[in-house]
Every structure is written in C-alpha cells, then in structure tokens.
C-alpha cells in the first residue's frame, strides 16, 4: 500500500444516502482525504455527519455514488474482503460503544477481532494470553489509565470509557481513524485532552484522521483542514486558517442553541426545520 502523503485514502464521488422513509442524510458529497491528513468535519446537529462516518467505516452503504478507499471501490465488498477493509479503519464513537459488562481488557483487545480466528477470540475471553494483556496495558498507558486494565467497563466514568475506546483503536492499529463526535459527552477540559491525544497519535503513526466535532474552537485549534457540513452537503472545505466567521455563521444559520450569533446573519431565514434533513426527490 502506498502511504506517501498525497495518495488518496478516501475518494467520495457523488455520495448519497437516502433512508427508506425518504430522508436524505448525505446528499451528493464529493471529496478526497489524503494519507496522513487530519480533517475536522463541523456542522449543526442533524447535518448527516454521523451517517457520513458510518458510510466511511463501511457500516452503512450509500444509495448512490461511489466510495473509494485506498484506490479500491468498496461498494461491492462482501464477506471476508469487507471485513479486511473494515479492519483497516478504526472508529471512535460519540458514546464510546463499549461492551459495558466486559472487563476493560477485553474491550481493548476487541480491536484485534479482525485479526483473530474465532477460537482465538473465544480463548482470549476465557484466558487472555500474556502478550495480549501486555499489549492492552500498553495501549491503556498511552491514554493514561493503565490501572483500569482488569476493571469492569461499566464502573468507569464517561471520560475513562472514551479512553478505553481509543485504546481499542490503538490495539487495532488501523490506517485510518474516524472519530464521530468523540468528546460531546465529556467536559471541556477532558475534551481538549482527548482530541489532543487523537491528533497526536495520528501524527506519530502517520495515520489518517477524520473527526466530527461539535466544537468549532477545537476543530480550528487542532486540525489543518476543516470541512463544513450541513443538510447532507459540504458547505465549505478549507484550510483552517481560511475559515472565516462569515463561513461559520452561514454554516450554523438558524441553529440558535449551538451558535447564538448566527441569528444576526443578514441572509436571515432562520427556521427550526432547517435542522431536519430535507425531503426532496433526486
């Protein structure tokens, strides 16, 4: 695999996802993300960012358009080939998505499930191997909670659980990390810490990083490239230095709870319905 900067990791061409009820969550999106790039995606809630991420990590399939990952068209992937591709993409979720009744150890080692055979995976649940325990402890040390290795996951705080989720991605050693609002359920100081850790890791390992963020400040502070996303469409795609207040105001127009200043925009027409995905025919 080519890993030189500039070679594409993601190539989206006219990507569209329409749900059965007619709601169009992602609407004709075309963009590229290069290897090792760090991209933040911002926009009002309900813009379709989570659906976009689910398409990017091969959980949901687009209804129209083409998705290329590392120069491979992934729409037709099934079975083992699909799982091999998923294995190369690590995801951190908004609600950490851990198995709360398992020990932290097993949640971290779940990052290996793509490599392990079923007997190996079941064996690890019953009697984890020493080298796996070591790997899990190292990953937890990188996110600052090595002492939680044997704890049951549901006794951890929200912030600690998010760190476990990051440790799972570390153990997975993916080529791409997708983070879907990873800090929306933790306090602001911790949020900075978690975003910082992910950006740093992606820098160290030359891993491509794409992150959905609620916080514009975090996006501008940590990411060289920022994409504005609204109503399922890319509104702007700029280096963070070029993201102006006007662009942000337009992006959040009508979103009173997230950006109060957006109410004063001259272009007006703030309406409650703008946070709903539009219904329209293609």
């Amino acid at each position, binding site marked *: 695999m080519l890993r030189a900067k500039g070679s594409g990791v993601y190539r989206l061409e006219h990507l569209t996802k329409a749900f059965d009820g007619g709601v169009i969550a992602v609407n004709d999106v075309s963009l590229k993300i290069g290897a090792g790039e760090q991209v933040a995606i911002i926009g009002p809630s309900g813009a379709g960012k989570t659906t976009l991420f689910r398409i990017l990590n091969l959980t949901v*399939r687009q209804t129209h358009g083409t998705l290329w990952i590392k120069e491979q068209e992934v729409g037709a992937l099934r079975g083992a080939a699909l799982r091999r591709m*998923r*294995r190369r993409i690590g995801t951190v*979720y908004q609600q950490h998505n851990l*198995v709360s*009744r398992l020990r932290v150890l097993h949640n971290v080692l779940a990052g290996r499930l*793509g490599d392990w055979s*079923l007997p190996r995976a079941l064996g690890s649940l019953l009697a984890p191997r020493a080298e796996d325990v070591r790997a899990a402890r190292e990953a937890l040390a990188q996110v600052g909670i090595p002492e939680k290795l044997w704890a049951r996951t549901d006794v951890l705080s929200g912030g600690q659980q998010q760190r476990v989720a990051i440790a799972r991605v570390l153990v997975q050693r993916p080529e791409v990390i997708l983070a879907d609002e990873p800090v929306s359920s933790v306090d602001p100081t911790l949020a900075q810490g978690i975003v910082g850790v992910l950006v740093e890791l992606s820098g160290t390992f030359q891993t491509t990083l794409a992150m959905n963020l609620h916080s514009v400040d975090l996006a501008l502070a940590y990411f060289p490239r920022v994409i504005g996303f609204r109503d399922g469409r890319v509104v702007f795609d700029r280096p963070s230095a070029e993201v102006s207040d006007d662009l942000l105001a337009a992006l959040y127009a009508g979103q009173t709870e997230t950006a109060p200043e957006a109410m004063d925009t001259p272009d007006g027409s703030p309406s409650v319905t703008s946070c709903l995905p539009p219904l329209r025919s293609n």
Partner: protein
Amino acid sequence: MDHPPSRAAFLHCDRTRALFPTLLALCCLAVFAGSWHLAQIQPGLLLQADSRQNMARFIAGMFPPDLSRDFLRLLVGPLVETIQISVMGTVLAIAVGLPLGLVGTASLTLTGILNEFELAGAPARRLARALPYACARGLLSVFRCVPEFVWAFMFVRAVGLGPLPGVLAIGVSYGGMLGKVYSEILENQGMRGCEALQATGATRWKVLWYGLVPQALPQLVSYTLYRWECAVRASAILGFVGAGGLGQQIELSMRMFNFHEVVTLVLLLFLLVAAVDFLSGKVRKGIV
C-alpha cells in the same frame, strides 16, 4: 428513491401510530369482558356451603401425610429421577433452543446495523437469510405451542415408558420457549457496542460472543434457570402419562385413593422446587 413520501404522509402515519396504544387497550378490555362471560366465572360458587364441605372433606382426607419409612424409601428413586429428567430436559432444551433462537434473532441475521451493509440493495441475499430465519421461528412456535404432555404422550408411544420420553418432551417444548425468549432478549440489547465490534472487522460470530452474549448474559441465564424450575414441576405432570419420576408416583397413589401418600409427594415436589429456586437465586446473584 424517485418518489419519496411527502412530509404530510409522514405526519399522518405518525398520528395513526399514536392511536395504537388506545386501540390495543380497548381490545384487551373487550377480550377480558368476553372471557369473563364465556368462562362462566362465578366466584360465589366456591363459597357455597356444599363446595366448602366437599373441599374440607377432601383436604382432611389427605392428612396426616404418609411419612412411613417404607414409603419414603420408595420415593428416593422417583425423586432422583425427577431431578435427572428436569436437568437433562433443560440441557436438551438449550441444545434445541439456542441454535434456533440465534437463527431466529433478526438483529443478527436480517435487520439492523449488523446487516445493513451486506444486505442493502441485495434482495437475493436478504431472501437467503430470511428463509432460515422464518423456518427457525416457525419451528420454535410449533415446538412450544404443542403442550409438553402431548409431546410426552407421543414420545411414550415412540420410546416406551420411563424417564426418556419425559426428557424428550421437556427438551422439545421448552426448547421452543427458550429459543423464542433467547431471540427476544438478544434483539432487545442495545447495538452500539456491537456496531463498534463489527467496525473492527469482526465476524457476526465474534460480535455475538464479544458483544451480544456478555451484554445479555444475566437475562439469558435467569430465564434458563426459571425454565429449569418449571421443568421440575412439569416432570410431575409428565409422570401422569407414564414419563417417570415423582409424577408417575403421584398418579399411582391417586388412582389407589391413597391421598396420604399424595400429600407427601406434593410436599416433596414443593421442597424440590423451593430448593431449585434457592439454587438459581444464588447463581443469578453471581452473574450481575
């Protein structure tokens, strides 16, 4: 996606749905009223002097229970047999119910986030999954809709008297119940953890054992133990049709009008069920 439904149609659909609980409640009320009438419920009948005296005579005739050494010694065999029937029946029920229940779990095989990518826009694949799903569901309902004593009756004809037909009857009918309830428990689990496991490249088997089963374990174990308790009681009924255990002894004593013995047997059964309940309570507490 040429003609998505209009927003008005959407809202209308929601409004109809909101009426559903009210309609359902009315239906339940009607069924209750009809049943009261048709089942000839007359609580007064129980309190009439005649019935009271008859019942009192019957109960008085049962006492004292027969606790003679000879009789008790006679019961050791059937007691052990009842335990064996219930244990083996439950094990067989798990062996029948678990695989069918897994195939019949829609969130594993057919719908939702675990099947979204592979089955979207692939009607042939969807059908290939839907057929085994429907077969498993159908088989499970046949197994559990036929009462266990009917199964026992059939198995007694097939394999003769003794504990084996009891084990088979419990295995099949309880297998149907376990499978149905297993699939419902699994379908009701939150799928967020499983979505993340799948995204690491895990197969559905691994998602099952790392995500669904650990999450649902307390409920699965709890329901299985409850079924075991029911199997102990059921083995008494099954004895009536010749499937061994304490039930066969109860039937024998009843037919000879030895009500002193019947009372001893019922007490024994009660103690056995209480012991099973106590034991399963301990296990449940261990798995939280």
